[in-house]
């Protein structure tokens, strides 16, 4: 048996502790300075008439509304070095060598796009902790579309521009010694394990067309079949989000780069599990396709020697169906399945928690109740828009909103600490 080389990726982590704007984009001693002119150049495109960048930092009395995508600044070398394959880099596999990460910062695009659902990020107050962006220094990109520019072109321009801006910021740290180095080994092949359970992640990606699509190596994943993908490629931005629905249930590019289930499995790798890898799958809209994709994914995981799979989704009740089908197909194929679900139990918590639950698989993690109401205090400043259309109020007002509106609050990839529990401790009596 040939020696299997140690495959993996090294993250060179630079911690961002303060931010500023200035004549040049620089990074030193934790301070990230951006040149607004250079930032706008990253987003130069005929479809965008005007672009503005503004920092929003944790603790400030700032609310970001109409949040679209968020990207963590990363680079593998000047100009990107191959990162964000198919967009900034050429469409080739990555996930090896080293990648610089500006941790504690994010590029956040905010503004109106059709079919985007109103999303909110609080930089202070009780709801700040409900979103990962409440704890990052966010470079908020606001935009005005060019007159007569088709919205699809605006969307494309923003996506490419945000990724280029993320690279531009990270490039500033290339010559700085990292604060930490994180070694991310590639998953062990089936013969190389240590007798521990092999557990992998199945990540469902929304694939419903324009404004509701996710890209892999620069291409829409719609119509694809489930596939294994090296988790290092996730770190290096092979999966880019182009969907803007269900804000609390959104998996922005930032979240794929920092995949929580992969992180949780890596944390236990070699201890009580072996991290077996990642399968990505589309979420078809047609029932027969959903069934095909689910059965195919189950066989793939079984063939890859997985003992268990953690299944995540993207979207609302329709996406629950995809998780449920996969969980049942996995159990049928002898692979134990756990699914992550947000509950839609209604404002008083008594509705049926899950729209489409699995029939045979029964192990479910809750990421919180979609319908619970929040009161967000008034703020001094808002970015991304002047009003929150959902409640028809100025964006800086005190707002009463369901948690469904807070960006990533019920993170289907498992980022959040929310869960649900019965109000009364014991199981209820039934006939």
């Amino acid at each position: 048996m040939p020696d299997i080389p140690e495959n993996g990726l090294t993250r060179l982590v630079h911690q961002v502790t303060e931010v500023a704007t200035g004549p040049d984009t620089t990074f030193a001693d934790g301070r990230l300075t951006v040149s607004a002119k250079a930032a706008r150049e990253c987003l130069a495109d005929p479809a965008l008439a005007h672009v503005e960048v503004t920092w929003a930092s944790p603790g400030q009395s700032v609310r970001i509304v109409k949040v679209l995508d968020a990207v963590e600044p990363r680079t593998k070398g000047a100009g990107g070095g191959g990162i964000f394959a198919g967009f900034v880099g050429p469409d080739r596999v990555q996930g090896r060598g080293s990648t610089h990460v500006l941790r504690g910062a994010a590029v956040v695009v905010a503004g109106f796009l059709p079919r985007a659902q109103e999303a909110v990020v609080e930089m202070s107050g009780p709801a700040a902790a409900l979103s990962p962006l409440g704890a990052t220094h966010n470079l908020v990109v606001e935009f005005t579309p060019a007159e007569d520019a088709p919205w699809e072109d605006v969307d494309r321009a923003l996506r490419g521009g945000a990724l280029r801006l993320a690279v531009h910021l990270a490039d500033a740290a290339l010559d700085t010694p990292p604060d930490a180095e994180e070694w991310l080994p590639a998953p062990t092949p089936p013969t190389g394990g240590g007798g521990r359970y092999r557990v992998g992640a199945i990540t469902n990606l929304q694939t419903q067309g324009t404004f509701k699509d996710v890209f892999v190596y620069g291409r829409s994943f719609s119509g694809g079949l489930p596939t294994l993908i090296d988790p290092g490629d996730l770190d290096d931005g092979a999966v880019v989000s182009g969907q803007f629905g269900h804000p609390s249930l959104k998996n922005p590019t930032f979240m794929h780069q920092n995949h929580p289930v992969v992180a949780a499995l890596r944390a236990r790798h070699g201890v009580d599990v072996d991290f077996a890898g990642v399968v990505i799958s589309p979420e078809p809209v047609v029932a027969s396709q959903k069934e095909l994709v689910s059965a195919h994914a189950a066989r793939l995981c079984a063939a890859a020697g997985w003992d268990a799979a953690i299944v995540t989704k993207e979207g609302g009740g329709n996406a629950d169906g995809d998780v449920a089908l996969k969980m049942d197909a996995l159990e049928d194929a002898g692979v134990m399945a756990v699914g992550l679900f947000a509950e839609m139990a209604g404002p008083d918590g008594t509705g049926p928690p899950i729209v489409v639950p699995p029939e045979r698989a029964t192990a479910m993690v809750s990421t919180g109740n979609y319908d619970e109401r929040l009161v967000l205090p008034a703020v001094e400043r808002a970015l991304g828009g002047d009003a929150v259309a959902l409640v028809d109020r100025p964006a800086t007002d005190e707002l009463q909103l369901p948690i469904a509106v807070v960006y990533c609050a019920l993170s289907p990839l498992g980022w959040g600490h929310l869960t649900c529990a019965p109000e009364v401790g014991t199981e209820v009596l039934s006939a």
Partner: protein
Amino acid sequence: MSRVVHYINQFFAGVGGEDSAGTPPTTRPEAVGPGRRLAQLIGPDHEVVATVFCGDDHASGDPAAIAEIIDLVRAAEPDLVVAGPAFTSGRYGLACARVAAAATAAGIPVIASMHPDNPGLDEAGGAPVVASGEVARQMGPSLDRLAAAVRRMLAGETLTADDGRIGAVPRRSRVATSDAASRAVDLVLARLGGDAAATEVPLPRFDHVTPAAPVADLATATLALVTESALVPDDNPDHLESARATKWLRYPLDGRDSLTPGEWRSVHGGFSTVWANEDPHRLLPLDVARRLEGEGLIGSLYPAYLVTAGNGTSVGNARRFGIEWAADLRHSEVRAAILTAT
């Protein structure tokens, strides 16, 4: 000493049976009917200061009824409202559940009592409901349990399964100590380690329906045909909706041995009605039912059919239609029904 207001229906208030099911909301300044035994069980610490009662048809059918009942309840200044026991009585259970939900919304503590299979149970929202027996003969033990739960509630305790609590218990968001992804790994290991029931989200509760006793002698029984296929006279004279139906209808079948194509159609929006309109017996088997009636296999066919559209029907409405159909058919001494479902 706490003030308890008791909600019951017209039958338990001693006003009358089915004939009095339209009784409007009424109040008496004392315990009435089973409330008297309840008062004994919770006294002397607590007192039943008033009884509000209402006819089951009025309470479950009139949109303003619940609000009127709550007004009467509020006027008696209760510390706690007690509704039922409703046993398996559908309309009474529905009324008790709605009173419980409305009282909770109005900030008045409330507890209801009914059998776990009562179809009204799920309308109580998050209000506490404790299990009663199946039939009125079990009033004694049902009141014992209810009284014990009343005492605990008035002492400020939260009711649990040990008190006989049934129905939906609200699920609330909580902040866990670890993120969902880590909890997912924990759950994988728990399951692989042999804990076959570990989960954060329980499976949805399957509804349980107490099966009716079998028909002893079909040859003497009246059978009804009912359907949710939205089969109506061709001009849909009563405007049955194609989806999210808010009503059900009754159409006569007497004198008919069959349904003539063209005189009937389905207005159901959930499937292609082409085949059904070609031959309405594909939705309502009148031809066969008449033949079996003629041959003596059934005593008689009920001379009408009940219909609604089962397309996107709200759970609440569907449950209400079922409760009303049962009451309606029982009133006409129908013994059994065949429901054709699409």
